[in-house]
């Protein structure tokens, strides 16, 4: 790499560092959020709270709802 | 955990949440500062000269934003009645709420101000002076604001009234805050003179604010 203007090296380094920080923060956010959601879902699953599968017809849902209450 | 600590932590948690004052205040701060060059034109030399004043004004307005819901939210869900009936002295509870407001609204502004000062071409000594004056002055803005928030608590659309009540009271803080910041940059006046007056104003507001707000709340809630 040729250093035409070495006086400005700290600005170039700062720019690349800021890229690492910002992109790193994005990746961290996406990863940590994924883990958090997965943990919460498995936690809720352990406690037995399940999603009801979407009812095929509205009439099927109504008596089913009455049963579960 | 004492009742006062509980109030402090509760208020801080609410402020940091969705729709709370914390980050919204900084965003508003940034928006207001961005508006100034649209109004004044992009003359960087001019913006640099009025930079500290613009930042102080924006900080004042941003600080005001979160005050609106400070008491009226508690009034709406009934916790204000509980606070009034509780054994903890009302003045101290209000002081804790004020502290929570400053920690979640004022502190982020102080942190954001130097970065936003770059937009107005402030140099390092100016940034440092500005941050210091904001650190000394923003508690005053919060605690004076408590008074207006308490007076306006029972009003449904009390937001604008709150601003009309509070802003004139904050004028001394604004004057000495900007004076101190400018003194550090240019002034013949040494930084210490307006700065110590600013600190005195803050200390006074730490006492007057909660007492006046408590009196107002007791009047309103009877």
């Amino acid at each position, binding site marked *: 790499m040729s250093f035409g203007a070495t006086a400005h090296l700290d600005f170039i380094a700062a720019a690349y560092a800021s890229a690492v920080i910002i992109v790193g923060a994005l990746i961290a956010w996406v990863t940590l959020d994924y883990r958090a959601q997965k943990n919460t879902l498995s936690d809720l699953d352990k*406690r037995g709270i399940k999603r009801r599968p979407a009812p095929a017809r509205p009439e099927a849902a109504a008596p089913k709802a009455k049963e579960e209450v | 955990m004492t009742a006062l600590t509980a109030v402090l932590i509760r208020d801080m948690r609410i402020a940091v949440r969705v729709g709370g004052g914390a980050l919204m205040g900084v965003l508003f701060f940034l928006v207001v500062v961005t508006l100034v060059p649209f109004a004044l034109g992009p003359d960087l030399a001019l913006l640099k000269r009025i930079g500290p004043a613009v930042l102080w004004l924006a900080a004042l307005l941003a600080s005001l934003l979160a005050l609106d819901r400070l008491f009226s939210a508690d009034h709406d869900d009934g916790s204000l009645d509980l606070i009034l009936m509780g054994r903890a002295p009302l003045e101290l509870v209000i002081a804790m709420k004020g502290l929570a407001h400053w920690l979640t609204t004022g502190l982020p502004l102080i942190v954001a101000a130097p970065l936003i000062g770059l937009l107005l071409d402030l140099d390092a000594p100016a940034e440092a002076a500005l941050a210091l004056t904001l650190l000394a002055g923003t508690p005053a803005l919060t605690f004076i604001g408590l008074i207006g928030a308490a007076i306006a608590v029972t009003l449904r659309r009390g937001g604008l009234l709150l601003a009309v009540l509070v802003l004139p009271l904050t004028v001394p803080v604004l004057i000495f805050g900007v004076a101190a910041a400018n003194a550090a940059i240019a002034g013949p006046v040494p930084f210490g003179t307006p700065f110590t007056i600013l600190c005195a104003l803050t200390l006074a507001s730490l006492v007057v604010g909660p007492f006046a707000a408590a009196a107002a709340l007791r009047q309103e809630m009877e």
Partner: protein
Amino acid sequence: MAVIDLANPSRFLSVADRTIPWLSGVTVLVFAFGIDQTMIAPDDYQQGATVKIMFLHVPSAWLGMLAWGVMTVAALGTLVWRHPLADVAAKAAAPIGAAFTLLCLVTGSLWGRPMWGTYWVWDARLTSELVLFLLYLGVIALWRTVDDPSRAARAAAIFTLVGAIDLPIIKFSVDWWNTLHQGSSIFRAGGSTIDPSILIPLFIMAAAFTLLFATLQLAAMRNEILRRRVRTLRLLQASAAT
């Protein structure tokens, strides 16, 4: 499998689970290649090595605008076609676009200081880019303030469509106004004015950033779908307890 099949969130999740791993691998590879190419790219005869900031600044600017473009299409999907994943795509893209716009502002500021002598100047392009950043923050605040996801989506969609006016302003700001910022030198009538030895690495970095955006967008959409499931389960839990 048609694209329309992706409309089913569960199916999207399985596609995302399969795609994200290899897509992130490709992203890393292209970045590695891009960084290598930017290192060996020659210095600008005027700006010296500082031109290397451009390899970050320009792609992040493009991606910041692309993300709002994605949000705009998603907004139409929400308002016009009521596509179920449009809401998710819009909400996921906002923080990513905000981050790229911030990176553009920061790298531009660090480039401006040695080149122009100032970290910031209120010219048309910089200001419209800052406004885009504020629009991003505003839409993120909007998403977080409205509780119900579908109402939030519609409010955000309207705001996104209105805010899209900023994109052509940014693009043409250097033509319409007298700006300190450099004029269009890449996408202009008559072809680019940048030498290929710098233009090629720039396009490689742009490709790398775009792949990064795609990976992050898929991952963020996956997270959002999972978050909505958590919310549904919690609401079920709350209503079962009563």
